[in-house]
């Protein structure tokens, strides 16, 4: 990102005074109250013992963490990683061309196209998930369309059973997180200098080669940000998984909710939460490290 460095007027950079720090204070307070404090509470609770619904024995124990390393919960983590990973890959495959198209569109149209990506955010994601129920259920809009198009019974012998299956969960996850992949990639694509692609072509690189050797590395910061913004929330997703799978597919987020709401084992729920946090940090570390390396390489 040599352009970015060139634009920055280095001589004007000065350390903010106390007034400047004051501007930042609300952010610090917000973080301390709603991120650091709750996380500290979670950490402390994760070393206690659950005593029946909602009650806690405050003697120190590592039992909750030991319990995470039993097959049931390891499966749960593994399944969550798989679902989040598949969601991220699908979002990248679908999102990249969309972001490319928007980023290369005439500047006057980009705003409108971005608007289309943002429109779903104007409704609650739960309402949008319930809309999927109407579309996908056995006698729903999708199967109705297939029947009207005579694809049932010619191609498919009976209405497709999509709802309450892993496919339904994947559809909802990809649908929910796609904008989070498109937007950061778009930002990178928009900044990409077209003359670099022309140069690649002039120097004899075919379309495939210029994509993998020039375009992708240059837009990688956007892709890396997209991966982070999709993978991290997707791994902790709940409610949507429950609605779309009819309660069959449980991911780690559902289990944490169950521990806090239903089973009432707050310490174990806290330990699961801490494990998830560690998973986030690892994801961040990997993607940020990778992104930084690509940046240096470029």
């Amino acid at each position, binding site marked *: 990102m040599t352009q970015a460095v060139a634009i920055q007027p280095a001589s004007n950079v000065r350390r903010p005074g106390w007034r400047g720090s004051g501007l930042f204070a609300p952010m610090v307070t917000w973080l301390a109250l709603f991120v650091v404090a709750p996380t500290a509470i979670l950490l402390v609770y994760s070393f206690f013992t659950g005593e029946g619904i909602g009650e*806690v024995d405050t003697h120190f124990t590592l039992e909750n963490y030991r319990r995470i390393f039993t097959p049931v919960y390891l499966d749960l983590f593994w399944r969550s990683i798989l679902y989040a990973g598949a969601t991220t890959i699908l979002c990248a495959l679908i999102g990249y061309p969309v972001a490319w198209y928007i980023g290369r569109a005439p500047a006057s149209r980009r705003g409108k196209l971005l608007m289309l990506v943002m429109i779903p955010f104007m409704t609650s994601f739960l309402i949008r998930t319930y809309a999927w129920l109407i579309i996908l259920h056995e006698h729903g809009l999708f199967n109705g369309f297939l029947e009207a198009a005579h694809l049932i019974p010619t191609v498919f012998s009976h209405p497709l059973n999509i709802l309450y299956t892993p496919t339904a969960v994947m559809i909802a996850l990809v649908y929910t997180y796609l904008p989070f992949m498109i937007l950061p990639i778009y930002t990178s694509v928009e900044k990409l200098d077209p003359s670099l692609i022309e140069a690649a072509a002039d120097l004899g690189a075919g379309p495939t080669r210029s994509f993998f050797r020039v375009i992708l590395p240059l837009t990688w910061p956007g892709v890396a940000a997209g991966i982070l913004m999709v993978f991290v929330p997707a791994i902790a997703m709940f409610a949507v998984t429950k609605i779309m799978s009819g309660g069959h597919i449980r991911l780690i987020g559902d289990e944490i909710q169950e521990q806090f709401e239903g089973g009432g084992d707050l310490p174990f729920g806290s330990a699961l939460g801490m494990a998830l946090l560690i998973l986030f940090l690892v994801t961040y570390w990997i993607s940020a490290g990778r992104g930084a390396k690509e940046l240096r390489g470029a």
Partner: protein
Amino acid sequence: MKHFHFGLIVATVLSLAGCNRSSQKQQQRLHLFAWSEYVPQEVIDGFTKQTGIPVDYEVYDSNEKMLTKLLSSPGHYDLIQPSEYMVEHLIKRGLLEPVDQSAIPNVGNLLPEYRNPEYDPGMKYSVPYMAGTVGIAYNSDKIKDPIRGYQDVFQPKYAGRIIALDDNREIVSWALDVKGIDINDVTPANLAKVKPLLADWLKLIKIFNSDDPKPQLFSGDVDLGVVYCGDAAKLIEQDKKFKYVLPAEGAHRFIDNLCIPKDAPDKQAAEAFINYILQPEVSKIISDKFPYTNPNGAARKLLTPQQLANPASYPPDSVHLEIFHDIGKANADISQLMTELRNGR
């Protein structure tokens, strides 16, 4: 301080941030925390209209969720709606405020058999709201074979056609019934006995839903399932093809109550609400909307013969129905077992 609540810490943090609600001016307001699909909006609006007290209405879909939320927000709710075993548990833990019956003259409308429940003798802490059963609802257009009990439902041929309550204790109790074990005898040994049966059943269930199974049964996404009688009664009202059966292996009933939690900010408003819903005309509205078994004798006189003949709302007296009791720490064993099974172990 060996035992303390998560909510206490959260409350401390919030009060540090200056968000403590007690600093605000107190205005009369009823914080009602009740089951989903159970208290009609008309009734809530009617109460506000008659008494001038606005109602904050929050819902839950299991007793355990209610308890967890109650513990994490002490001094917030004025009125909760626990089932019989949860009333027993709450009394044991000293989490309920006694109900002043002199402030609720309409308790006289309750049928005598509901006035001295075994979980709360003399209704000191609870007033029955509605009662009901858990049973099997099925679509007789699709299901031609006789359905008599749980074993007729959970058959491989109905795989992917079944809906069930999303409630661990309920599901476990059905398996206990099939094995001829007392539903309140939840021991590790008994849970081990029902585990293989439950593992088979869970594979057959298409949807777990405690909120409202009616749309899925009505649309034909599923053809049969184990549901609350009120939902079954509603389906039968809409279409006679739906049938309701009390499982032959053993059926149980529930009695949901209105209770005032300890440290409720507005006990008077809570008692006013209890008294309000016990009026026959108001109680009838509840029965019209959510046709469970109404314990209110004066309200039953206002119901139509069709409503009283609905087999899901008013099962024959001859059937023996058990009730759940507080099983204490065995809840955690149920939770662990179901987590294992639902994660395919």
